[in-house]
């Protein structure tokens, strides 16, 4: 059965391991993956706990479609209380770990407590062990994965690891698997490091029984045609996700020089087509790889090219994968650097250190603006000339943050809010963040719907929680109505104009529900309505879920699951101190979005700012769609409708 995988609760303080089945009624309520993880986090983590302390938990989750015949059942969700924000920490990565975890008999591994020395968790064919981590601790992301395979004598082991940055207590450490699959943005790696947990290693031979195999295969034909027929996925299979950054930079939708500009001029060398050429030259024609069960192949392979800077730093020929568009944001637009070798070196470094590329790049770019304004001086930077466009300074700062070996490196390792307190003056004013998490490298001043998404994202400023990216495609209203009117009817305003405010709150709410749905299933966001309007969602999932797992759920029931799970994340954040207008932990954008106009880009983008009154109205509409009051608190009626009215009082259901 595809649904017979279990939950393991591992207490690293006591060494106790409990293995629990996942009852069918729990599945029907939360499905799995990120949704069930949100429930577990809410119930297992003590309110107000120290995120770096033993009372926090880190939860590794696969979805019910992981390792099945469904397309891209590859995703691993990791959830915890985030040390960076003190709120929800949640990330999602591709690769091959989740299917392996399921073949080893588990959907969820919840780890709490703290080991008294470095350990790792070994999951194999229904068993879970805590093992001595002396051979893996201190190693880079890839070294650690090779080391555990050697130690256990099995080259097919897949691991979810933290890197050296997390071991040193950097607050935005990733969980990683493979070369570059990164569970970023959630601080899961940092929580692992705080627990002396280097990795969860998995190997399994327990087959997943497909409920209706012939129908599942037959349906796959249609499903895969939807995936591969989408123009966006054909583009991604050629250029990878850097095409996203390229497209946004074309019209002036990216952050440059922290947030002073909205376009990186003359950036031809880091455009996706140029990066593709480097992969062609250094790896060969067939340089695009994929995660488990995926037909898109969006992950480029590359070697760092032979150029003066790579030579000087001894980096020529180093192998890595990506970069994702997030690295173009972090290491090109925001710090104002336009060399491909800088991008590829930085991408390699963060993958090896296991640190969040967006956070570290944004923090360095913020520090660059502070340096430009004289708030940081060369005394603070340890003599580094931290000006925009200084490639070597950017690279040096990555090392200093991950090793915490200079004053500024150590300060930035704690995250932006803590750093702003230490740096003082009006430094916080220049940080582009929501809930204490730095914003990814896009600039939403000209796109209110996308801006709303950034403000409302449950894990802090982010695009992978509710970004209605197809708002940029100017789709005819009748097409928008078909997408956004299903599976829940909607007849309010909808506008194909990305500059409009009307109707965007519904689009963000719909997208939030869609993204939770795909994260509950354990499949990839690039396989649903995100970058393409013709990709599968609720109706298609209802079928793929039934054929693969036997679980019968209507599209509307799947929507309800996703809505419920999003509400649990919101309740978690409220419990941990989120307040609507709190500039540090709230659901609002920083003043620069409203006060500083865009300077570059397409003519209609120049001069754009967000309108504060309209933005707040849009936020109020979003709360209404979610069934919350004017402060964003779920109403008793909403809690009752979604069966969450007993959430606080009930014993954990598993």
């Amino acid at each position: 059965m595809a649904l017979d995988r279990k939950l393991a609760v591992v207490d690293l303080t006591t060494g106790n391991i409990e293995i629990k089945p996942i009852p069918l009624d729990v599945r029907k309520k939360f499905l799995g993956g990120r949704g069930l993880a949100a429930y577990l986090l809410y119930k297992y983590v003590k309110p107000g706990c120290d995120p770096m302390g033993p009372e926090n938990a880190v939860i590794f989750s696969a979805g019910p479609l992981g390792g099945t015949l469904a397309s891209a059942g590859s995703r691993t969700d990791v959830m915890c209380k985030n040390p960076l924000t003190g709120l929800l920490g949640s990330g999602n990565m591709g690769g091959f770990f989740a299917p392996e975890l399921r073949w080893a008999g588990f959907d969820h591994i919840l780890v709490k407590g703290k080991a008294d020395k470095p350990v790792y968790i070994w999951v194999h064919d229904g068993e879970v062990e805590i093992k001595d981590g002396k051979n893996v601790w201190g190693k880079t992301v890839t070294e650690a994965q090779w080391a555990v395979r050697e130690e256990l004598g099995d080259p097919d082991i897949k691991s979810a690891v933290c890197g050296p940055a997390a071991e040193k207590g950097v607050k935005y450490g990733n969980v990683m698997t493979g070369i570059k699959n990164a569970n970023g943005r959630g601080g899961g790696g940092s929580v692992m490091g705080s627990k002396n947990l280097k990795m969860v290693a998995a190997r399994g031979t327990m087959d997943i029984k497909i409920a209706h195999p012939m129908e599942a295969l037959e349906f796959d034909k249609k499903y895969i045609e939807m995936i591969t027929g989408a123009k966006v996925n054909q583009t991604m299979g050629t250029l990878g996700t850097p095409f996203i950054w390229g497209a946004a930079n074309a019209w002036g939708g990216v952050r440059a020089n922290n947030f002073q500009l909205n376009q990186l001029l003359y950036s031809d060398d880091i455009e996706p087509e140029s990066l593709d050429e480097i992969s062609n030259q250094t790896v060969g024609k067939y340089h695009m790889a994929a995660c488990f069960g995926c037909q898109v192949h969006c992950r480029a392979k590359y070697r760092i090219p032979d150029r003066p800077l790579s030579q000087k730093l001894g980096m020529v020929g180093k192998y890595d994968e990506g970069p994702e568009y997030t690295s173009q944001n972090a290491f090109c637009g925001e710090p104002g650097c336009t060399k491909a070798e800088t991008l590829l070196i930085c991408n390699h470094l963060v993958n090896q250190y296991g640190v969040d590329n967006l956070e570290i790049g944004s923090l360095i770019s913020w520090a660059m603006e502070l340096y430009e304004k004289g708030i940081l001086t060369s005394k603070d930077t340890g003599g580094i000339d931290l000006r925009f466009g200084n490639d070597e300074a950017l690279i040096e700062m990555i090392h200093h943050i991950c090793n915490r070996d200079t004053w500024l490196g150590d300060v930035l390792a704690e995250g932006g809010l803590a750093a702003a307190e230490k740096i003082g003056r009006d430094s916080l004013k220049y940080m582009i963040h929501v809930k204490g998490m730095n914003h990814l490298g896009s600039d939403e001043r000209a796109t209110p719907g996308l801006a709303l998404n950034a403000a409302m994202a449950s894990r802090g400023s982010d695009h992978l929680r509710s970004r209605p990216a197809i708002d940029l495609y100017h789709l005819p209203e009748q097409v928008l109505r078909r997408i956004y009117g299903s599976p829940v009817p909607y007849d309010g305003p909808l506008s194909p104009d990305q500059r409009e405010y009307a109707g965007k709150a519904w689009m963000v709410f719909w997208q939030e529900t869609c993204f939770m749905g795909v994260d509950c299933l354990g499949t990839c966001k690039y396989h649903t309505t995100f970058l393409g309007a013709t990709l599968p969602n609720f109706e298609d999932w209802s079928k793929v879920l039934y054929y693969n797992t036997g679980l019968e759920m209507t599209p509307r029931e799947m929507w309800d699951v996703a809505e419920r799970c999003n509400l649990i994340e919101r309740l978690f954040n409220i419990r941990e101190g989120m307040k609507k207008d709190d500039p540090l932990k709230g659901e609002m954008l920083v003043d620069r979005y409203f006060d500083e106009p865009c300077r570059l880009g397409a003519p209609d983008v120049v001069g754009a700012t967000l309108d504060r009154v309209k933005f707040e109205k849009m936020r109020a509409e979003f709360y209404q769609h979610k069934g919350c009051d004017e402060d964003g608190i779920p109403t008793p009626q909403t809690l009752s409708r979604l069966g969450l009215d007993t959430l606080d009082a009930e014993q954990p259901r598993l």
Partner: protein
Amino acid sequence: MIDEKSTAESLGSTRTYGQVRCMNPSCTSRITPQPGQTMAKCPKCGSEWRIFWVKAGLPRVRGPVWETSLKMANAKWDTLTDKKEEK
């Protein structure tokens, strides 16, 4: 059940090929570059775009023609700042 078309699947027929959209938000005109053409000018708003062909029939905007883009952005900026000064 397998044969029923979902909303997403049926929307597949709305895809267009061989065209890009002008990326100026109020314009968004469809532009049809000639096969292999690497630069296209928007007939409506005058923006100029560099074109990359993912494959035959699938062009994409690689980026703006920098000089044109900068010139148009500066002109727009000047009108905005002039207006402010007049107030």
